[in-house]
């Protein structure tokens, strides 16, 4: 059996690794972006000079040969699903037995005037980074459009090179659909503390042409014109499936897959950013463009290809990011627009750069989510509380078990416990102490 995988990102590569781990089939990965798998999430660090491109490769180059995974750098222009043939730009026709589509995403463009000018672009692929690098020389200002995770990374990138940045965010506060109000305000402060020009409730109206097809300014919904030599478009991503639109493959926004990651065509699977779940897990979106979910789908699809059927289960929601210097972690349900039956205990450090939020169901008093800013929590402990629908009171009492900050750090757990007691009137008796031994016992290890 020869399995072809289109896309050498995290989902395609994870699929290949687990196929190899569990079988002897022939595996070939095709990609037209890079020769080897690299970590897209580290693009910003290449630009900032924390790492070179080499350092972002999770596996050394010998790994592929040793594990008998063929790598081909070519672009797939068309797929003939009837004859099971891939038509490539430089390697002719390739014939597959099973096919995994791990195509990733492309940056959104919402039809803004001037969006195709030179000096306008998103940040997704290494080629985008090369373009940004090219425009950075002598750049007077960069304007970033879109208040999401990639937007703030891009702002930090330019900022690290002392290039002035204006950051246009449509919402009232940075990423306030996802972040609760206080956390969102904290990130606003962090952005401004670094001297980045954050303009809230401001939309892009037009990108101005300098006459040579190069952008020279943007016009905003506040009737401002901001001069800039680069415009970063980071208003989300969409599945990179355009070249398949005319085919028999069922596509809505992404490639439709069932719980086994099978598409409507036999022997064709889709994973990662480009896959759209027909029946997403409860509380989850049909497309989740995330590193973690790509990894889980890659693992799951390998078993399904090998006829060991297993449904894709993304588990309990978690995510993390870093807002310039503030680390962020989330576990379970935390929202900027929480439903009425949710309430939370929110503790914030007096420096305004750290916070702990415990979200619970008002009716049942069970924990439903944890949101951390500038504080690290232990994934497995939070997961266990959430999976077991633990009482808020018990969580607060055991809170030390989740503390994952480095040694010698001041612990804020006692402050959170005190806050809980003062706001609910319930004292915490015998709070669980923090030792690794207790954590391991709690996790049953």
């Amino acid at each position, binding site marked *: 059996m020869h399995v072809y995988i289109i896309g050498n990102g995290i989902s395609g590569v994870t699929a290949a690794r687990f196929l190899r781990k569990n079988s002897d089939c022939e595996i070939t990965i095709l990609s037209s972006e890079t020769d080897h798998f690299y970590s897209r999430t*580290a693009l910003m660090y290449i630009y900032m000079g924390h790492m070179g491109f080499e350092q972002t490769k999770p596996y050394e180059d010998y790994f592929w040969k040793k594990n008998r995974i063929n790598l081909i750098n070519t672009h797939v222009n068309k797929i003939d699903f009837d004859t099971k043939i891939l038509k490539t730009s430089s390697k002719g026709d390739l014939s597959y037995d099973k096919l995994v589509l791990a195509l990733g995403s492309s940056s959104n463009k919402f039809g803004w005037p001037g969006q195709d000018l030179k000096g306008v672009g998103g940040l997704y692929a290494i080629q985008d980074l090369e373009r940004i690098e090219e425009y950075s020389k002598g750049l007077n200002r960069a304007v970033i459009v879109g208040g999401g995770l990639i937007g703030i990374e891009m702002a930090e990138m330019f900022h690290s090179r002392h290039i002035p940045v204006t950051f246009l965010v449509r919402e009232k506060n940075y990423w306030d659909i996802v972040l609760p109000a206080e956390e969102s305000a904290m990130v606003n402060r962090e952005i401004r503390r670094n001297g980045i020009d954050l303009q809230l409730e401001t939309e892009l109206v037009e990108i101005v042409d300098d006459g040579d097809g190069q952008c020279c300014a943007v016009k905003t919904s506040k009737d401002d014109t901001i001069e800039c030599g680069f415009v970063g478009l980071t208003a989300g991503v969409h599945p990179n499936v355009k070249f398949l639109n005319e085919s028999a493959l069922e596509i809505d926004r992404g490639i439709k897959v069932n719980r086994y990651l099978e598409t409507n065509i036999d022997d064709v699977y889709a994973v990662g950013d480009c896959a759209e779940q027909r029946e997403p897990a409860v509380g989850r979106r049909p497309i989740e463009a995330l590193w973690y979910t790509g990894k889980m789908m890659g693992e799951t699809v390998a078993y399904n290809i090998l006829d060991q059927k297993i449904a894709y289960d993304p588990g309990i929601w978690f995510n993390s990011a870093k807002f310039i210097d503030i680390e962020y972690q989330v576990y379970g349900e935390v929202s900027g627009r929480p439903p009425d039956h949710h309430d939370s205990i929110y503790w914030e450090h007096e420096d305004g750069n750290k916070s702990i939020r415990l979200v619970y169901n008002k009716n049942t008093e069970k924990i439903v989510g944890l949101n951390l800013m500038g504080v690290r929590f232990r994934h497995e402990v939070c997961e266990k509380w959430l999976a077991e629908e633990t009482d808020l009171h018990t969580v607060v009492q055991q809170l030390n078990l989740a503390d994952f900050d*480095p*040694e010698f750090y001041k612990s804020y757990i006692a402050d959170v416990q005190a806050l809980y007691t003062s706001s609910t009137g319930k004292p915490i008796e015998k709070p669980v102490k923090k030792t690794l031994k207790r954590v391991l016992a709690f996790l049953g290890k």
Partner: protein
Amino acid sequence: MSSTLYTSFTPEKPPLLDAVQKVTLALGSLGLLLMLISWAGVSLPSKALMFYTSMGLIFFGVIVYSWRTYMIQPAGIKNNGNFFSSISHRGVLAWISAILITGFYVVLYLKAEYLGLGDTENSGLVAFFDPLSQLMHSKKASQWFVYGVLYTLAIVAFGIKFIFKYRHNRYEIIRTISVMFFQLFFAFLIPEILEMLHPETATNYFGKDMKNMWPLDYDFFDSWHIQNLSKGGLMGSFFLILGLLMIFVISPILTYKFGKRWYCSFVCGCGGLAETAGDPFRHLSDKSMKAWKVERWMIHTVLLFSFVMTIAIIYGYLGNEPDRYLLSRSTFTWLALIGLIGLSAVYFILQTKNVEDGSKNSKYIISGVVVLAALILLFNYLAGSGNAYFLQNYGFRQAYGLWVGAVFSGIIGVGFYPIMGSRVWCRFGCPMAALLGIQQKLLSKFRITTNGSQCISCGNCSTYCEMGIDVRAYAQKGQNIVRASCVGCGVCSAVCPRGVLKLENGSSDIFSKTAEQKAIHITEDQVRMLS
């Protein structure tokens, strides 16, 4: 401190260096220049004044410069531009510094007269340091005094720089204060003061680094040293007993509880210099599998060499001058035999008990070689040979002193900072690191925990691990990092943008701490149930 100086509103790119940095750079260079002029033989007017001015300028130059670099930015990870800068990324400046530092070490170890060391009177650089040496122990400076002062100055000044850089991270701050403290007091001030108080016996044993222990301190068991200690009265006996306790009791206990970091990142001077002055070079260490293989062969060979050398030496002097020691050659031989074979057996058992990490053959090779070393000793003893390992006993010591003590630990170890990273010696050559590392891996509560599935494989951790450990390889699998070479510097944990890594100690899973926690998220049971 206001952060407006580091702002994106600045209409133009700020200059590479601001005015304060330029001035401090100039002053620091002036300090260095004074030192170089005196080395070149120019006689300066007031020797003492010049010396203190020079040291002061260098010290404050470094501190004010780095204060200006870091304190005007918000606290956080500041690795911007590391891969672009000439000095920190193997550019011209890096090569020039590597050549200069290497050259200095060659002269220091092999041709101290070029530094101006004289029999009765010093000249040049060594003479430049006479004023402080006179003040501290009323005699002229030696090349080692010069080295000690510069070394301590570097650790303290760059330690302060490091604290500015990592001021948001208490682990890094405390660890750095600790190495600065041990260097300043235990390696420098206390020995010098003891020497001043006891001028008669001083040079015999006080004038050395007190925190150094065997096998890093490779002449601890030399006959002159043992003799001096045992004849050195209360103080001498104290040092002898402390030295032995450190090796056989204190170190194993601390390593069990905290891993080798208690020494390598909190106490040791070699580690201290690497972590402070060497910090800009930490990302240069080679992370490849090949480098790891070379490392394991090399460092364990040095460890074996240090064992054999020490046994040969003791065997030698116990045989030659039996009356001067309590221990007889035959008792020593039997003790060494029991020690070596016991060590090899314990190693073998622990290695088997621990969850295997793939390097299955290594346990046979390592235990085999140690047993072989014991058998050769036995053979020579029974044959009545005066030499424990065929060759001249003292020959081992001389070869070791030259190749390991001078060439490896100094010339390559520090000279190659700008090319191979800051812990070349600690990683490839230090027998102490090797010994503590074996224990860390097999019998210690220490590990770096990976935080569930939060890793995004970005590579910051691996890049900034000075020991060349591919931390990410473990983190992305959800596996703890348990590596003999990890010195527990904590930088991988600090630079991780997703809060994935935590250095911690725990006893309940001591033999299974390397197990893969989860293969991402599917267990074999789940697959079987559904298939």
